[in-house]
């Protein structure tokens, strides 16, 4: 009896000591509180396939996420895995050696992702990838199909048709566009959503290569178009903030919203009866490629100093699988860079189609690494331009001069 008891105690003690080494509890931080349920389902599927690994999903308020994450990482109390932003904000974390570099051996799914997606999670100074990119966002025109049908309008093929549509909507006593410029970053989305086709793909290629700058006539022409169409923004749009613009569209008072594809889910939630369509704002001629602006939102990354590196890599590999992408895209209504995912949502499919001819959301993808960032400059200058306080030429000049303070190709 005594012996059995002793053995049992020993056995229990051994299990207790060994257990933490076997069970791997991973923490996973996110800024998407609203996506918790879906993530928990995804995690449950992962845990079922990987016994011994558990993942704890923890979400923080989006606007303070960067501060919380950076403080935790600096204090060595960061999570094992985390959502990180893309581009400049990504480099702030990755450049400080807090993230685990990942390769195609660790995450086979990376092999099938396109280069633009991977660039969003690549640290420029060493060329290594530190995150699995998760969603792309598209700058386009979202419109109210009900109003379009009611007035017998169709998706415009040329810039003039877009203007004619806007005029027809105003004549019918509605707001053509819901957009306002009081919230600074809206100015940048407006330019990308409305001006990309006029500016054209070549300009973007050249500006990225450093062979032209923003004073280029093609970019100025894009700004002129934005200025022209702002005549169809609501009266007093300079005082209209982002939330108010959203409300104008959701309530059906305005027919179009120039903005990001991330609005779609939100619009549908707020007004399920709203019938929504999307199109790329056209260029001056019907032959001009209809372009949308695209950027990647962020990625899933591992902590460089995690104690469970292998388990983390397993989870990251899982986030790049078609199985994960399928749920991520259809449940959370995102466009994923993972290949082989079929979208059940028609509208998302349409956005994915538009993404086939896209230009980068340029200030975020290429000029948000140093201060003053291209975004800071463009947002303020466009706000000024639409308030009638500067011209497209002067705005373009100011943006170029600001970036030129640190960017060599713009200095001559």
């Amino acid at each position, binding site marked *: 009896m005594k012996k059995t008891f002793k053995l049992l105690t020993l056995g229990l003690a051994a299990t207790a000591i060994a257990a933490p080494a076997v069970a791997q509890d991973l923490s996973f931080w996110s800024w998407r509180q609203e996506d918790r349920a879906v993530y928990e389902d995804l995690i449950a599927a992962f845990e079922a396939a990987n016994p011994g690994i558990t993942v704890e999903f923890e979400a923080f308020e989006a606007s303070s996420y960067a501060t919380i994450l*950076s403080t935790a990482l600096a204090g060595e109390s960061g999570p094992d895995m985390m959502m990180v932003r893309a581009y400049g904000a990504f480099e702030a974390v990755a450049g400080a050696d807090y993230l685990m570099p990942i390769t195609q051996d660790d995450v086979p799914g990376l092999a099938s992702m396109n280069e633009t997606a991977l660039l969003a999670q690549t640290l420029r100074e060493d060329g290594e990838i530190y995150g699995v990119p998760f969603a792309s966002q598209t700058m386009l025109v979202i419109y109210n199909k009900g109003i379009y049908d009611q007035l017998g309008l169709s998706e415009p093929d040329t810039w003039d048709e877009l203007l004619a549509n806007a005029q027809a909507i105003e004549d019918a006593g509605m707001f053509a566009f819901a957009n306002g410029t009081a919230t*600074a970053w809206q100015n940048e989305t407006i330019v990308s959503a409305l001006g990309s086709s006029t500016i054209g793909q070549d300009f973007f290629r050249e500006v990225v290569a450093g062979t032209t700058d923003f004073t280029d006539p093609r970019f100025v022409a894009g700004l002129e178009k934005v200025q022209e169409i702002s005549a169809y923004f609501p009266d007093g749009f*300079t*005082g*209209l903030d982002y939330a108010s613009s959203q409300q104008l569209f959701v309530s059906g008072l305005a027919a179009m919203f120039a903005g990001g594809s991330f609005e779609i889910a939100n619009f549908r939630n707020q007004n399920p009866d709203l019938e929504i369509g999307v199109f790329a704002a056209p260029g001056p001629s019907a032959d001009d490629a209809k372009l949308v602006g695209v950027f990647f939102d962020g990625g899933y990354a591992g902590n460089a100093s995690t104690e469970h590196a292998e388990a983390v890599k397993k989870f990251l590999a899982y986030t790049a699988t078609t199985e994960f992408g399928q749920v991520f895209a259809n449940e959370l209504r995102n466009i994923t860079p993972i290949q082989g995912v079929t979208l059940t949502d028609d509208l998302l499919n349409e956005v994915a189609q538009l993404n086939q001819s896209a230009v980068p959301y340029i200030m975020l993808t290429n000029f948000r690494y140093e201060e003053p960032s291209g975004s800071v400059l463009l947002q303020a200058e466009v706000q000024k331009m639409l308030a009638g306080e500067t011209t497209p030429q002067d705005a373009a000049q100011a943006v170029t001069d600001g970036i030129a303070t640190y960017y060599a190709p713009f200095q001559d």
Partner: protein
Amino acid sequence: MDAPDTTEAPTQKSRLPRLRMSGRGMWITFLLVPPLAVMALFVIYPIVSALAYAFYDWQGLRRGEFVGFANFSKVLFDEPFATTTWNAFKNNVFVFFALMIIQNGLGFILAYALWRDLPGARFHRIAVFLPVVLSTVIIGYVWKLFFHPIFGAVNQLLRSVGLDVFAGPWLGDPDTALNALIFVNAWAWVGFPTLVFLAGLQRIPSEILDAARMETDSELLLIRKIIWPLIAPSATVCFILLFIGSFNWFELPYIMVGLDGSPFGTTDVLGLYFYRTAFGNQSAGIQDFGMGSALAVLMFLFIAVVATVWTIYLRRREIEV
């Protein structure tokens, strides 16, 4: 505290009072240490570390090399940062003078009216102070709705009385945005100087006033020669607090116009500029602890020095009276 005397063996007699002294010392220490520790941890340490941060180059979260005063010279003299800094500073100065006139001036007039017990004084004493207890978040949000260009109460009111020409995008127009914020601040905070001035007025001995009233019938002369000098301590409090508040102004502009000082910097103040530089504006920029810390240190020094010198000056004036 004295160092313990170890040269002589203490006698029983001399030990007793010494023990009592150290007991008292311990009691004082016991009372002082916790607040001092909290102050050191949450006030002095952050200030000192911000001071240290300001002398380094930062790449994101990674501290780079020691750069001396480079961050300071960058925010003060290098373009385009210098323009932003001086524009924000200029706006802070404008806010301070405007609030000095509107908020403190109106505060004094209201206090005087309440003190003279005009009809409804009891009700108004509470009404005037009510907005002060509201959270700035609520005030900012509600006034933002009032100023809404399409549905806002302000424009609706103007239109309903035929003043359509004045209806406009209050927070989006560079000519009105900062003034609108100043108005809201004054509306919300006017109760504070009112209360402080009222307390000062109520402390004036009635004999002095009675004596003065026998000399003159002029209320203005009475205010200028008797009342104003006697409530100088109240004025000191109102002026200094308003000065500190104006140069630390953050919550109201942040809630009503956002981090960028929209439209295009016309409502930008040092607090907003510091915040978006140090912590990054998620939808526009990146974070730079070095420059942010330099801004914070400059703001702290400016406020501390001016507030100290001014307090000393105002206090002297009080004593002379």
